[in-house]
């Protein structure tokens, strides 16, 4: 299609009136659009990203967590609702709305069938993630395959989709939505719809906003996902009388390779080597127990730990005995024959790094190294100690990986109820505004992280938002 015909088509699409306007183009948006359409509504999906980048952070995902009572061809065993709830309670430390969370978990039981019906295919857990084989259903081909399947279904159902189309303004009066301004190819279009579904993700790509919450440190954060999740929908809703949930500082941040691109580096920039060595900061000092627990469980705290260090940078240092003990990384390790040489390459003070490594080596107690158990290899007399998998860093060559905080997911959002209706400041639900996905995930996940729950929340509330918006329009 030439750009002119594309623009004509877009103008024609944007000139129509819709029953349901869905803002966003990821998992939550598509689940909502599909369900609203199946309920008979005329649906328009506006996605700010170009076609290739459609599906925001959903493109980068690999699994969703769903409760189930029996094993199936992919999930290796039952995952009862109660266990899911216990897991959620533990990671959030109670920062969750119990009613909504339990409701989400119950509804998650239907996701397996629902996703299959939309053409999404699953596979057993990927190499290196066996611990998730029972609880999480992995998408065959990853998140982009899921997104492709959902768009294909949307197309077959006759849902209109427009890419490169960003919502820049909302007309809301007394909690009632009437129209949105959609910016397309440099022009603003007023699009009227009877109901709105806000499914535009989080604000993790909005560095300014992150800086407001975190201070100037946020300038050094890497954004693991799409550059298009600027949180503009969230901001507009909050500015127009919608009740806020969550803390802008709460987010899922992991330590990733500092050489990753600023945006969209995705899964392949993660590093799993922390437990096998030590991690030092810019001053060549250790700052946390690297062997506290298994990596998957500790994965999500290291982003914050590194964020708290000077210049928001850390360096994982291991020796040749550990180099093939973890998932391979996309970037080659920085290699050196001696600790001093390594320090030189990392631009750390060689004397200080030597002292830190020597001090660590001297504190390592004898033990039986076992990467598959919380073993008895630990240090004694250090602050902080390393409590498991502590082996001396003594066999050259030595290797280092630089670490930076990588933001995955933000928790600040809009308050919703079980019908996915957006709650206004006065506590009343909006009649025709619904929200799903990361934009409301903070209702369930106020803190901490449980692998795969982002997609669960998006799919559960997306389905409900679509259904409820469809119902509203019909009545």
């Amino acid at each position, binding site marked *: 299609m030439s750009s002119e015909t594309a623009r004509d088509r877009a103008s024609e699409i944007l000139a129509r009136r819709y029953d349901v306007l869905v803002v966003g183009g990821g998992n939550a948006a598509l689940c909502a659009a599909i369900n609203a359409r199946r309920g008979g509504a005329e649906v328009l999906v506006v996605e700010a990203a170009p076609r*290739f980048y459609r599906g925001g952070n959903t*493109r*980068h995902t*690999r699994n969703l967590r769903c409760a189930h009572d029996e094993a199936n061809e992919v999930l290796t065993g039952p995952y009862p609702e109660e266990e899911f709830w216990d897991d959620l309670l533990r990671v959030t430390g109670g920062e969750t709305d119990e009613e909504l969370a339990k409701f989400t978990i119950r509804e998650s039981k239907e996701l397996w069938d629902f996703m299959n019906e939309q*053409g999404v*295919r699953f*596979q*057993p857990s*990927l*190499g*290196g993630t066996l611990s998730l084989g029972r609880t999480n259903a*992995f*998408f*065959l*081909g*990853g*998140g*982009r*395959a899921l997104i*492709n399947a959902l768009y*294909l279904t949307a197309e077959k159902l006759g849902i209109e989709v427009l890419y490169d189309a960003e919502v820049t303004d909302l007309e809301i009066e007394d909690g009632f939505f009437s129209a949105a301004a959609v910016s397309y190819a440099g022009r603003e279009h007023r699009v009227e719809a009877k109901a709105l579904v806000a499914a535009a993700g989080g604000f993790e790509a909005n560095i300014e906003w992150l800086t407001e919450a975190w201070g100037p440190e946020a300038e050094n954060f890497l954004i693991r996902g799409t550059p298009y999740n600027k949180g503009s929908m969230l901001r507009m809703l909050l500015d127009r009388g919608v009740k806020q949930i969550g803390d802008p500082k709460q987010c899922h941040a992991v330590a990733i390779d500092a050489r990753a*691109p600023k945006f*969209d580096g*995705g*899964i*392949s*920039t*993660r590093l799993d080597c922390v437990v096998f060595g030590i991690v030092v900061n810019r001053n060549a000092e250790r700052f946390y127990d690297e062997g506290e627990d298994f990596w998957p469980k500790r994965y999500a705290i290291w982003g914050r730990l590194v964020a708290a260090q000077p210049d928001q940078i850390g360096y994982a240092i291991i020796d040749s005995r550990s180099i*093939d003990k973890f*998932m*391979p*990384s*996309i970037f080659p390790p920085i290699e050196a024959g001696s600790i001093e040489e390594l320090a030189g390459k990392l631009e750390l003070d060689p004397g200080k790094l030597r002292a830190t490594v020597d001090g660590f080596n001297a504190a390592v107690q004898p033990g039986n190294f076992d990467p598959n158990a919380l073993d008895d290899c630990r240090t004694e007399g250090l602050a902080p100690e390393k409590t498991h998998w502590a082996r001396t860093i003594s066999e050259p060559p030595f290797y280092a990986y630089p670490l930076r905080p990588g933001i995955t997911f933000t928790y600040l959002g809009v308050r919703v109820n079980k019908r996915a209706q957006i709650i206004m400041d006065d506590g009343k639900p909006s009649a025709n505004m619904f929200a799903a996905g990361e934009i409301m995930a903070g209702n369930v996940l106020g803190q901490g992280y449980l692998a795969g729950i982002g997609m669960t929340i998006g799919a559960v509330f997306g389905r409900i938002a679509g259904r409820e918006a469809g119902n509203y329009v019909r009545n």
Partner: protein
Amino acid sequence: MFATKDLEEADRLMRICNACRYCEGLCAVFPAMEMRRTFSDGDLNYLSNLCHQCGACYYDCQYAPPHEFDVNVPRTLSKVRTDSYRSYAWPRAFAPMFERNGLMVALVASLSVAVFLIGFMAWSDPGVMFSTQTGEGAFYRIMPHNAMVAVFGAAFLYAIFAMWMGFNAFWKDIGASGERLEGQSVWQAMKDAGQLRYLDGGGVGCMNEDERPTDMRRHYHHATFYGFMLCLASTSVATIYHYAFGWEAPYSWYSLPVILGTVGGIGLVVGPAGLLGAKWTRDRAMSDTGRFGMDIAFLAMLFLVGATGLLLLFLRATPAMGTLLAIHLGFVFGFFITMPYGKFVHGLYRFGALVRYAMERRAAGLVGA
């Protein structure tokens, strides 16, 4: 480090994929990749020949172009694969056949058709060549059976030998030559190849024009492959008829060689035509367009062998028979002698890669699915 730029690129991609692994369930390439952390030229040649070019990992990849990581596994592996054919060619002097392969194959084919036409006209009686011939031994009045067997037997044996040498080079390159070959792995590979198990995008179908899965390439490939096998079977049965029973061609419409040959010939016409069509509409972004010549030449040869065979069958009782026989035999001869120097070898190396993959899985204790 790496012998070519394409191998270097393949190494870069495999490192990204190995850190990502999202495509693990799509085919055999990714699980085989995961058994390694670093990749030698031989490893990359192995992985590239294991790839069936289904395209799924291109559309499923969050890092595909225009993403800055520029991950295009099908295109890169396709380039590496074609280069590997060249490097295994025997004798080495014929390796350049793989450059501008389309042109080379077309030249050889037309030359051999011309030689048969001229040869028939020079040596056989024009009265026989251009008149209706029927009954036992009709074909052999134009070219004596023994001459046919000698010429085609020699061409075929040469092709088999050259390909055997190529296969040995491949087997050594991918690091499999020291290992014991078990029957079970070969059987597994035969099943995987026979079904084209890895041309299905992990179960949804292969992707050709866009992210919409389709199974058409698999169907057309089955038509081509099984068509080819049926034609081989037809020739073998006819040879047995000739030597064991003294029954001379042409055979009746309901005889086994003719039925096998007809069904096989139809497969060889429909299959390559379908594959050519699919090639035409295929998303250029994931194809190694510079190498289309080789694929097209191979498909065209198969199509022409099939089509001229069918024509010969239908017009064998007309004066056109002599000319058609020359053309058909010309294409068959051209096909035989270019077999080791064209796309035909893909089947051989891919099969070898599947055997190797089955061996690796057994060694890793992952037998079964």
